[in-house]
């Protein structure tokens, strides 16, 4: 009977952990998939005929005409023309007369030698797409069959400003929607009406909804500068409808809300601009509200992750583990080490997976240190919380110094895997960074896992049994020592996970733990010792409060105010949010 109890205990924590890890990896997979972004389809490269005609004009002997043609092309602001203009500047633009065809302007690539002859690969002047021969292979043309279209200093100087602008427009071709958006914003600032048609064209092909709105916003912003009041009116109305956040300054000016500026000459436009400003500001109120909630939830999740391990160790075992922060630090450094191993020993394209491996590594590393702490020191101090406080503080100093000597006193660089960088755009002006989202999900999973572990597994039942009645459990064949060690180790492991998560949003250095320890203890105290639910509510509550107060009074005073609030709160509920009223002396 007793033997069986031992066996079960030895096996179940492992299976509980395995289950947790499994859940975690499923979650990560989901994230990976979310992280892969839709790639932009190759844009149709049909050359518009008028541009085609203008390109053809480059092939002329007259330098003046050539300059005119070049400048006119450059002014179009069509990013597809960038390669052509660059080629013109570098002298790799050629006139090529195919056998039995008309001469056409092409871009030449780097010359290749075949035998003693030199050949050039050719590219379409407009789209920079490689020209193919009949077999579908890149076309190679002997160098003497093409003639360079010369751009003298004057042409180069004439097109230079346009080329720079084009480089900007060219970013509209980027596969990354963020870059495309940024480019459109810059183009809107240039305010060149020539750019409208370019933007329109790209708008039609744009697959990403947010980027489409950015393009529309840019178009409307340029149109706001139109001389035609009707166009301006339409643009202003459009901006109000799409909540063009970047336009708020221009709209305010147009509405005459900026001191020293009467606003738009047309009263209808002024009124419309005023309405648009109101609409956008109302919208901004909402976005900043959502943003605050999100940032609060994100900080709350970090608090929660930290407090979860503490809630187990402090709440269930009565141990004040001041080294909890250092266990988080170990988790963060474990992530760093795993990252280093990936960089050194595995191909680059696997780098993104390092973080998935880092999570169990962080859990294990911190759990192991926690296990050693328990069996060597903490074991002798049960029932003396103040002693554990001092001892674990001592351990924390030692751990810090060890890390400082092994890894150096400087912060180490933990890179985010690509699937955690960037963010999810919920609506315009609200972006949820993936790393923060990840932490929220990780916290949720950890809470759920802990709950399941404690309340649905035999090992969890044993932990609860031992923490509630040590003697009785021992009598019933539960090895309380082993359960203590495992409980402490799993609390420490959770700290490690928290550390791994922190490595994605903050600095990783030897004093990482110190920065969070007070906060996480406040969470436990506010929540009520021994109550997971308390830790959850208090973690989210204090995190949210922090972010709510921060904009108004700054981070420091927000923290002070929260401390005062916690003290006042404890006036009413000295045992914390969720503590049971205990009976007896």
């Amino acid at each position, binding site marked *: 009977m007793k033997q069986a109890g031992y066996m079960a205990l030895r096996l179940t924590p492992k299976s509980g952990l395995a289950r947790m890890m499994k859940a975690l990896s499923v979650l990560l997979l989901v994230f990976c998939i979310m992280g892969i972004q839709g790639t932009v389809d190759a844009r149709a490269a049909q050359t518009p005929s008028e541009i085609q005609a203008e390109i053809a004009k480059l092939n002329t002997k007259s330098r003046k005409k050539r300059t005119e043609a070049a400048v006119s092309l450059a002014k179009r602001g069509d990013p597809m023309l960038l390669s052509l203009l660059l080629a013109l500047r570098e002298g790799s633009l050629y006139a090529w007369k195919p056998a039995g065809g008309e001469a056409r302007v092409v871009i030449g690539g780097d010359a290749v030698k075949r035998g003693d002859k030199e050949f050039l690969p050719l590219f379409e002047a407009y789209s920079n797409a490689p020209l193919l021969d009949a077999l579908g292979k890149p076309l190679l043309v002997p160098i003497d069959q093409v003639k360079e279209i010369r751009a003298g200093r004057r042409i180069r100087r004439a097109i230079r400003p346009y080329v720079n602008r084009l480089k900007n427009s060219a970013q509209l071709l980027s596969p990354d929607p963020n870059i495309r958006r940024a480019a459109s914003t810059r183009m809107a600032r240039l305010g060149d009406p020539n750019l409208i048609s370019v933007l329109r064209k790209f708008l039609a092909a744009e697959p990403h909804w947010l980027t489409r709105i950015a393009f529309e916003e840019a178009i409307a912003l340029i149109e706001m500068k139109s001389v035609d009041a009707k166009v301006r009116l339409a643009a202003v109305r459009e901006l109000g409808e799409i909540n063009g956040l970047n336009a708020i300054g221009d709209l305010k000016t147009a509405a005459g809300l900026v001191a020293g500026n009467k606003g738009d000459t047309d009263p209808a436009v002024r009124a419309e601009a005023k309405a648009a400003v109101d609409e956008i500001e109302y919208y901004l109120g909402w976005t900043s509200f959502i943003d605050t909630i999100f940032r609060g939830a994100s900080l709350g999740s970090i608090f929660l992750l930290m407090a979860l391990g503490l809630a187990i160790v402090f709440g269930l075992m009565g141990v004040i583990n001041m080294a909890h922060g250092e266990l988080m630090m170990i988790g963060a450094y474990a992530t760093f080490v795993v990252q280093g191993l990936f960089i050194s020993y595995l191909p680059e394209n696997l780098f993104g997976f390092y973080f998935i491996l880092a999570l169990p590594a962080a859990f294990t590393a911190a759990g192991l240190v926690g296990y050693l702490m328990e069996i060597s020191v903490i074991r002798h101090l049960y029932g003396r919380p103040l002693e554990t406080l001092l001892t674990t503080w*001592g351990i924390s100093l030692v751990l810090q*110094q060890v890390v400082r000597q092994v890894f150096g006193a400087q912060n180490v660089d933990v890179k985010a895997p690509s699937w955690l960088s960037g963010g999810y755009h919920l609506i315009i002006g609200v972006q949820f960074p993936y790393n923060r989202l990840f932490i929220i999900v990780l916290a949720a999973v950890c809470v759920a896992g802990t709950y399941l572990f404690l309340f649905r597994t035999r090992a969890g039942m044993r932990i609860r049994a031992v923490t509630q009645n040590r003697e009785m459990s021992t009598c019933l064949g539960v090895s309380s020592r082993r359960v203590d060690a495992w409980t402490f180790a799993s609390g420490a492991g959770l700290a490690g996970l928290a550390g791994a998560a922190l490595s994605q949003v903050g600095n990783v250095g030897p004093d990482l733990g110190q920065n969070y320890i*007070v906060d996480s203890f406040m969470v436990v105290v506010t929540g009520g010792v021994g109550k997971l639910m308390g830790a959850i509510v208090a973690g989210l509550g204090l995190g949210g409060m922090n972010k709510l107060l921060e904009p108004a009074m700054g981070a420091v005073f927000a923290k002070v105010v929260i401390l005062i609030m916690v003290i006042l709160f404890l006036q009413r509920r*000295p045992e914390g949010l969720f503590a049971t009223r205990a009976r007896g002396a």
Partner: protein
Amino acid sequence: MTKRLEEKFGGAFLIAAALFFVVIMPSLNAFTSPDSALHISGFTLNLFGKFLAYAILALGLDLVWGYTGILSLGHGVFFGLGAYCMGMYLSLAIGAEGVYKSALPDFLVWNQVKELPLFWKPFYSFPFTLLAVVTVPALFAAGFGYLTFRTRIRGVYFAIITQALALSVWLVFNRNEMNLGGTNGLTGFKKILGLELNSAATQRGLYIATAIVLCGAYLLCRWIVSSRAGRILLAIRDAENRVLYSGYTPSNYKLFVFTVSAALAGVAGALYAPQVGIITPGRIGVLPSIEMVIWVAVGGRGTLIGAIVGAITVNWARSYLTSSFPDYWLYFQGGMFILVVHFMPDGIVGLVRRLPEFAKKLMSKRNRSGPSPSGDPSAAGD
């Protein structure tokens, strides 16, 4: 047996120690030639001045922790309040001799503050400063203690709340808006009561003042713990519920002892600032506050001598180790936290007290029965 030893020699030892620190050490500094083997350098004297200031704080902390069982992890705050009060006086005492030749302290000029903030103004007065170094921390502690003790926040809860207090105050003092020098704190002191602060004689005077205040603090604490109220403190530590059901209001006692302790910490800070020449938020945060607890633990909590011995020993070890083996100080400190709690719960004083017992055990191995536990029916404490 041990008690008798203490009773016989304890008083004489204390007087000898007081004489040594108050009279002999400064005399060896002032009246011996620097080549003499007995000479104590100004540097050493200054170092001990700092240690003795720490010892004053340790006495107060011991009153709270060792005697009443309240672990405060926020005593750095009270130390800091005292030190900043004195620092403000010292900053104003230099007059217009600062770098900017302004009547304002340099950092205020640097922060483009045009007028001296109102709360600075009283610190032109030395008597006011002396009053403030006691009352400011005491009032702060009383307010904080009122809120916490009244609702029976105790044990680890209290420890954690005080730690959060230390963090908050540290954060606030780091801000330039507080007009207290921000991260750099208050420094560049030149004069105290019109005397050159850095002259050997002034420093010696400060040392002597610190030693005398330490003696006074010791006597005050001794009086408190040997009064009947002192016994209530022990009673609160051992069985607070019993005290409550006996009709006492433990929160009043705690508030009293916490306030006294904070005042002592403030005085310690005020003596620290002119001797060290700088006070920064770094001295009042979470880390220094918990270090103070370990002084008391090392010396022996629950004994006043222990607090003094601990403060001097640990800080001496610190200044030795941080200069000789800077990488190993943290190991040493961490190890101290772990080992003292485990193997020396009564600290150095407890160890010394048990020495005769050990000796006896070693000498009479034949007698396997060992000393009976009823051999020491005395109360704890001094």
